[in-house]
């Protein structure tokens, strides 16, 4: 039997669906999709992703683990929630897509260098450090994520905007020295670590 066929033999079995149901946020809803495609037609980034939510759900049910977890589709979510409110089956599609993105990121299967994946990580790191998000540091980190040279270029490109915001009183250059932070940073960090620990325990994931 050829490779294609070996792959096909395992297809349309429950294994991957079960994995998603157990480990992905709201993953138990995937079985309820009725394949109408309203989500696909409602997504503002529709022309840009490789797989619509409809397809992702079908791929999960068809057992296409690798293709799902390496897809960039979930990272195209703008969190506009259009799919959620329009889904006739009331699937929390946005949450499932976020959950799948997170799961593929945790497993290290998500596409490398995917820009939204990168900023999501930077955002969270910024948040965990102080309990609040520091817009300037977050922006700078974003510009420099691809290395120093590219960062200068990125920052220069948006320089006008940045200066405008500073002038308008909506970006504080002094934030680089410290800026807003929660008093109980330590408590927040411990709280997040604990939550992660509980979640890992529940979903059978190793930290």
């Amino acid at each position, binding site marked *: 039997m050829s490779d294609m066929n070996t792959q096909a033999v395992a297809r349309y079995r429950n294994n991957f669906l079960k994995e998603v149901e157990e480990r992905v946020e709201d993953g138990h809803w995937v079985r309820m999709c009725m394949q109408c495609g309203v989500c696909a037609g409602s997504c503002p980034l529709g022309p840009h992703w490789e797989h619509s939510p409809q397809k992702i759900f079908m791929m999960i049910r068809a057992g296409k683990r690798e293709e799902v977890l390496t897809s960039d589709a979930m990272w195209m979510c703008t969190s506009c929630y259009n799919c959620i409110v329009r889904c006739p089956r009331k699937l929390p599609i946005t949450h499932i897509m976020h959950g799948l993105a997170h799961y593929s990121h945790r497993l290290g299967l998500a596409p490398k260098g995917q820009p939204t994946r990168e900023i999501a990580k930077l955002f969270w790191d910024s948040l965990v450090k102080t309990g609040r998000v520091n817009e300037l540091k977050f922006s700078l980190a974003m510009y420099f994520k691809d290395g120093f040279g590219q960062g200068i270029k990125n920052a220069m490109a948006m320089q006008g905007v940045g200066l405008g915001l500073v002038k308008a009183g*909506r970006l504080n250059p002094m934030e680089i020295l410290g800026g807003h932070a929660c008093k109980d940073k330590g408590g927040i960090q411990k*709280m997040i670590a604990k939550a992660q620990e*509980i979640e890992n325990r*529940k979903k059978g994931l190793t930290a």
Partner: protein
Amino acid sequence: MAKKQYAFYPGCSSQKKASADNFLRSIDKVCEKLDVQLNEIPDWNCCGASIGYGEGGELPRLVLSARNLALAEQNMPGQDMVSVCPACWLASRETAERMHESQSLLAEANEALKEAGLNLKGEVKARHFVEVLIEDLGWDAMKAPVVKPLEGLKVAGYVGCQTNRPFGIAGESFENPKYLDKMVETMGAEPLTRYEQKVTCCGGALAFSEPEKAQKQIRDIVESAYDHGADMIVTPCQLCQANVEIYQSEINKKQGTKLNLPVVYYSQLMTVAYGGSAKEAGLDGQLIKAEKLEGIASK
């Protein structure tokens, strides 16, 4: 009438000298005129926003909001928690509802909250400031302080996503919410009710990571407002305001367009209509000056 009291969760973008600094100034003025007191929750933290999911898991994200709710419960007992930021509201409301519905989830959250010395009972409600205006105060109360009706101002009401979905304002449709137009009308301006891009996504956090895709959205949102003869766009959302205002110059640079349409908050319209100055309305914070509105304010 007694002052209405709320536990206030301002959120990261409304901090001093942050991207929505001016928004908060106008909110302060509106509250003053409407006899509403917002009591800032001590040591509140970030809600995780819509982009937190990549690195942060489900429970870590939920406990971020749970901490804010617990702080509100503890420090402002009996008060609803109010946000002015749709992302903050969405995260807080989702958490509040899920904690209220599931005892086991609440127990897990409390196990984590204990690390920060807190406990959540799960009784506090998470609300949006617009809900306070519409549901607690009402249209008549909103209209009463109007001293300078914004006559002749054509305004495209851009509701965006998260104020409208998945929760939205009670009684409004997801596809065509009408409250923002009604607020514009109540302030004496002319709402462009046939504006098609009312609930279009501005790209959200992807304005950073996928600038081209987001800017296509933004261009549609602005151009449609121009098509309807808008003097300005009004929005209830910080991220919408920032994306739609900030990137107009970028789009002009890259695509040769001449977009230059002011984008203001509903509270800025209200402040001016209530007789506030341009500064009180935070109009000095606009990248694209809302000249007509400033004109009315200075009359």
